[in-house]
């Protein structure tokens, strides 16, 4: 037996640091899904009729769809009738107007996670729209944003306050019938975030949402819609942790981005859902549909993600490059440890002229983790002079894990320029020994190598997020990598 295996073994036994459960009175639907549940959910949220119908249409379509089996992941079938489709902290009924009114226990939960809202808004200047068990309970910095005409609210609030915007853009990027999980989300989405940046406005601060799953057996169906009007600019941060659970939890979110002429949306994610224990028990199923439409000319959408959590990740943040000269970017770090499985990547669909896309994907596998990159670059007929650069790198730690790459390229215009680079490397014993010989511990060595491997992606994250991501990677690998 080589020492490396022992090392990896001991390292992989790190437990999930954020495993704790907050006991807040829940108002929860009994498990089960049918048209009445969809109606009840919509009624509970006092939604306009068109939205109820939209949900029902999605639900009826979903009934006819089959769960996809093409991803390179394996899990026990999900019983959709065993899931409760609504859960909200009761205190929300009274509607907290400020942080003072927010459940003290909830605030404590954030403190345990190291994300005190107070401190964050003071120190980082970040407005936080905290999503906790499907309902937003704290929204800050609203007035500052309001001054610039920026709308940043929970999805439910936006449905009440800006129905015309929701109706205009909802489902225009990810149709309610797009895929199995997107259709399910459309039928039963509970809440999420809505962002609207008016024409010519550069959003004065980074917008941040912390997602968190808390209630047992509650499927989480978040929905986010971001609209950037002509010449506007926004950077949005999404991060999450989840408490320790034994049963699997389903998380099927949808994110839609719309960038009009000369607009830019930067969407960054640090994902740390509970990955399951070291034997592969428990953990979140994270089946997410994220898509951005560069609808206007010279528009730009950039996805940056650091995925360290979830038992299973199924996620392809994509860009539809419709406007001429528009640009799509995808920077990703996906880490799988223990028995985690990730099938992630992106789709870049080039429609407009001179459209450009960049894909940088870094997969890190440790323990028994399986990591697949799945990407599609499609150059349509009218996309003159489209360019794509793709780079997919895999890093293996130990010899029980796996890395897989599934790149699809479909070019229908001969003027396209495509570049694809791929590499696979390992952290080998000699590298560890070399660093050990200089006095650097094995954990620090692995963390140093992994951070070095991922730095092209970390560079794309906003500063405070990059630090968090690096820390998260260390924690995720600390027992697994260091």
């Amino acid at each position: 037996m080589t020492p490396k295996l022992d090392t990896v073994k001991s390292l992989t036994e790190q437990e999930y640091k954020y495993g704790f459960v907050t006991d807040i009175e829940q108002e929860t639907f009994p498990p089960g899904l049918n048209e009445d549940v969809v109606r009840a959910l919509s009624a509970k949220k006092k939604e306009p009729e068109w939205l109820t119908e939209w949900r029902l249409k999605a639900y009826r379509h979903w009934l006819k769809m089959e769960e996809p089996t093409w991803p390179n992941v394996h899990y026990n079938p999900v019983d959709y009738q065993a899931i409760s489709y609504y859960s909200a902290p009761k205190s929300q009924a009274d509607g907290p107007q400020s942080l003072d009114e927010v459940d003290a226990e909830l605030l404590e939960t954030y403190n345990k996670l190291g994300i005190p809202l107070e401190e964050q808004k003071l120190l980082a200047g970040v407005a936080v729209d905290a999503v906790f068990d499907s309902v937003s309970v704290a929204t800050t910095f609203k007035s500052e944003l309001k001054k610039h005409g920026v709308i940043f609210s929970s999805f439910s609030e936006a449905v009440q306050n800006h129905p015309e915007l929701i109706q205009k853009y909802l489902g225009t990027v990810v149709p309610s019938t797009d895929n199995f999980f997107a259709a399910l989300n459309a039928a039963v989405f509970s809440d999420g975030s809505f962002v609207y940046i008016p024409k010519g406005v550069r959003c004065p601060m980074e917008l941040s949402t912390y997602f968190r799953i808390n209630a047992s057996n509650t499927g989480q169906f978040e929905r986010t819609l971001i609209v950037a009007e002509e010449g506007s600019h926004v950077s949005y941060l999404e991060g999450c942790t989840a408490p320790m659970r034994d049963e699997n939890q389903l998380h099927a979110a949808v994110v839609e981005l719309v960038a009009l002429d000369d607009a830019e949306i930067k969407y960054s994610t640090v994902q740390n859902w509970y990955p399951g224990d070291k034997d592969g028990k428990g953990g979140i199923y994270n089946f997410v549909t994220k898509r951005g439409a560069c609808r206007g000319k010279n528009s730009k959408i950039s996805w940056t993600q650091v995925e360290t959590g979830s038992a299973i990740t199924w996620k392809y943040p994509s860009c539809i490059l419709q406007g001429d000269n528009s640009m799509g970017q995808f920077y990703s770090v996906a880490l799988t440890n223990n028995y985690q499985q990730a099938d992630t990547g992106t789709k870049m669909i080039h429609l407009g002229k001179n459209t450009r896309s960049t894909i940088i994907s870094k997969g890190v596998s440790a323990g028994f983790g399986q990591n697949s990159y799945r990407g599609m670059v499609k150059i349509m007929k009218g996309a003159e002079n489209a360019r794509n650069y793709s780079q997919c790198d895999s890093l293996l730690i130990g010899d029980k894990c796996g890395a897989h790459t599934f790149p699809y390229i479909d070019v229908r215009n001969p003027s396209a320029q495509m570049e694809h680079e791929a590499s696979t490397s390992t952290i080998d014993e000699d590298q560890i020994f070399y660093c050990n010989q200089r006095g650097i511990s094995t954990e620090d060595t692995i963390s140093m190598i992994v951070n070095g491997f991922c730095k092209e992606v970390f560079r794309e994250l906003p500063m405070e997020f990059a630090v968090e991501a690096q820390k998260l990677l260390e924690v995720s690998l600390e027992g697994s990598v260091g």
Partner: protein
Amino acid sequence: MLQITNLHVNVEGEEILKGLNLSVSPGELHAIMGRNGSGKSTLANVIAGHDKYKIQSGEILYDGKDLSEMSPEDRSLSGIFMSFQYPVAIPGVNNTYFLKAALNAQRKHRGEEEMDAMDFLTFIKEQMKKVEMGESYLRRAVNEGFSGGEKKRNEILQLLALEPRLAVLDETDSGLDIDALKIVAHGVNNFRRDDRAIVVITHYQRILQHMEPDVIHVLLDGRIAKTGGKELAMELEEKGYSWLEEEAAAD
């Protein structure tokens, strides 16, 4: 400082060191010469603690402590440094970061304050001058795309920066042209001090022309076959190793 007694070491089941004895005191520079396969690199690796090299019997004492009880990083932190014959590349990790991590691990262990980025840069640039390395090197990944000579100079740079008490240089002269050889030898001479010991493992005597070895040992089939002064190196250069083999056979 270093006391090796009747050391037997196996590599992948094959016995390579067959009863080696060696004693090194502070201030001394020992040269260990021998043919390929005589066990030179095995000796270096077993001192540093590479786990491919298994001690079957005998012992290695360092300051009276049994080295076999210590992990490679503990050996390093207690002052043992090995210059690698083939330093590995670590893609993605830049030299500055690596050197700083190593230095601060050592400083922390010695109870000294860790060096911040600014102080470290000033410090390392001083050291780099001694081995004639350009500053661009700091921005490159550890040993990645380095020429043979650059790798060896990088090893000596780390020797100078980390200031160990016992340095084992495994064929640090191999693959170097004459200029690089001088730079490396100069670096080692710079490092030499009364409280530090150096073991130079080499194939050829030419690096020894630029150093002042106190003792020269010839390693033959896993044992020290002959020990002498600097003149022994010259003799080997003229006559090769075969006369020693004959001598050993006659014993």
